[in-house]
């Protein structure tokens, strides 16, 4: 659609974005508030950030969360990429409907159900709950998101390049690593980042599947929020928002640049022929 946007279009977009961003901006502004009362402005201060860094429980939880997110995102991206290849490249096979069902259902499954069912599984097989059970739980739901992200990229990717490589005697595995993977790399990176943030954010599933010694940051934030809004929590939230924003923007710029370079190289190759 190209045509000048009407006044109504502009107003709805501006109000929409104001609605999306105002609460987050207010939260960040009030993390620099001198006063203990979160809603009364009493001058600029960074003391809540200092207090946050000195809060050992909070820092431990942040470290656990970062480790869980890193490990689970990495495994989820590998599994999700395999799942996307199966969905897009393997055509029909026995059990395909069940497979695609198991990929799409977790995307919308209420977290309380996923959390409860995984906990009952861990209890049934007598697995000690802690770091690794949270990791397994996070892999299971984020691999489905990863699969969807990679799949959307694979759909638009022409199979003729892979076929050409295999016709020339390249084994499928090598064709994948040297032809397909470089092309879908931006999607694989965004799948990893999405998995990472999903794990970073999760409260409900982690609460069900965790054990002693594996308290994650969202669990810590939640238990403090229940006691009331504090500027210290505002500070923690602001740091998390900053980390995610910088990460996402950096990744999108990098993948954009790679994409441009790749297109330029392709054009150069065609021109050279």
């Amino acid at each position, binding site marked *: *659609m*190209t*045509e000048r*946007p009407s006044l*109504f279009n502009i107003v*709805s*977009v501006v109000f*929409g*974005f104001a609605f*999306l*961003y105002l*609460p*987050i901006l*207010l*939260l960040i502004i009030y993390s620099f508030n001198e006063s203990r009362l*979160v*809603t009364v402005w009493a001058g600029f201060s960074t003391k809540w950030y200092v207090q946050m860094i000195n809060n050992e429980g909070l820092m431990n939880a942040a470290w656990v969360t970062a480790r869980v997110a890193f490990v689970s995102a990495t495994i989820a991206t590998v*599994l999700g990429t*395999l799942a996307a*290849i*199966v969905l*897009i490249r393997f055509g029909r096979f026995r*059990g395909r409907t069940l*497979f*695609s*069902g*198991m*990929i*799409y259902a977790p995307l*919308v*499954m209420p*977290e*309380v*159900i996923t959390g*409860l*069912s995984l906990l*009952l*599984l861990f209890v*049934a097989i007598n697995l000690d709950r802690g770091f690794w059970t949270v990791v397994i*739980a996070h*892999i299971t739901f984020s*691999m489905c998101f990863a699969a969807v992200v990679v799949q*959307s990229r694979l759909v638009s990717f022409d199979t003729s390049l892979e076929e050409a490589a295999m016709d020339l005697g390249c*084994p499928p*595995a090598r064709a994948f690593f040297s032809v397909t993977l470089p092309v879908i790399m931006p999607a694989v990176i965004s799948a990893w980042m*999405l998995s990472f*943030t999903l794990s970073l954010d999760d*409260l*409900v599933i982690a609460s069900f599947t965790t054990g002693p010694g594996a308290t994650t940051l*969202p669990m810590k934030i*939640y238990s403090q*929020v229940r006691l009331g*809004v504090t500027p210290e*929590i505002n500070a923690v*939230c602001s740091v*998390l*928002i900053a980390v*995610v924003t910088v990460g*996402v*923007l950096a990744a999108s710029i990098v993948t954009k640049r790679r994409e441009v370079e790749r297109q330029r190289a392709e054009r150069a190759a065609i021109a050279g022929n």
Partner: protein
Amino acid sequence: MMPDEHAKRTAWGRRLVVAIPYIWLLVFFLAPFAIVFKISFSEVQIAMPPYAPVFGWEEGFAGWLDKFSELSFDNYLWLGQDALYINSYLSSLRIAAVSTFLVLLIGYPIAYGMARAPTQWRPALVMLVILPFWTSFLIRVYAWIGILKKEGLLNQALVGIGLIDEPLTILNTNIAVYIGIVYSYLPFMVLPLYANLEKLDRALIEAALDLGCHPIKAFWTITFPLSLPGVLAGSFLVFIPAVGEFVIPDLLGGSETLMIGKTLWSEFFSNRDWPVSSAVAVLLLLILVIPIVLFQHFQQKQAEKGQ
């Protein structure tokens, strides 16, 4: 390498690629549901784990048949008798349905405006919609507490401009829950709608307008019907998780807010009644199975269309 052997190796490789994610999901996604289902028929016990065993592998088929006659439907009867559960289910469905409609109402003009923005702005606008989605759900819900509180920023602003004399009670009511759901799920509606509206052929609308069709009528007869796949995808993505939502009703809602996710949570963590929480989960899943299957069917059709 013999070509025969080569083909054999390829076939094994294919099987492996299917098997790894397949087995993972069977073990960690499907099998847990079977266990939830099984435990929902057992009785609560003060022990760890706090439920009586139902089926064991060691008893064999005869043992299983025996056990079938002893299955306890008490948990389900209990759910039917106690008004708390029925009201939670109904109220969850109502809150989710109303919120989905509100998200559509607010999200559609945004997506429409984005689709008509100059082409070079669109990637930035999409990024701006996605960015809050990457930020923690919990944090975004938490941000609203400070705004909606009695002495919060919204009341301060409204009193400040003289619109109201007394601060309004919004936090810990259903209104706060609606605001929270609309806010948190807005990107899920805007993105599929935008993807759909962006591809829309402008020539159709121009033709209608040239032939003297009123713009509003042109919208309802052309644009809206053509954007239905986007509307459907967005509505599924909002409605299904909203039914089982826990964080929003827990932090923004009050004692009047009954939602099944919250009920399940307190049944599990406060009452430590695993069998009843399993039964709650099974019923919730039964309610959601139709929209989930529709969603999955829809997604697969869209993916195949893309191919």
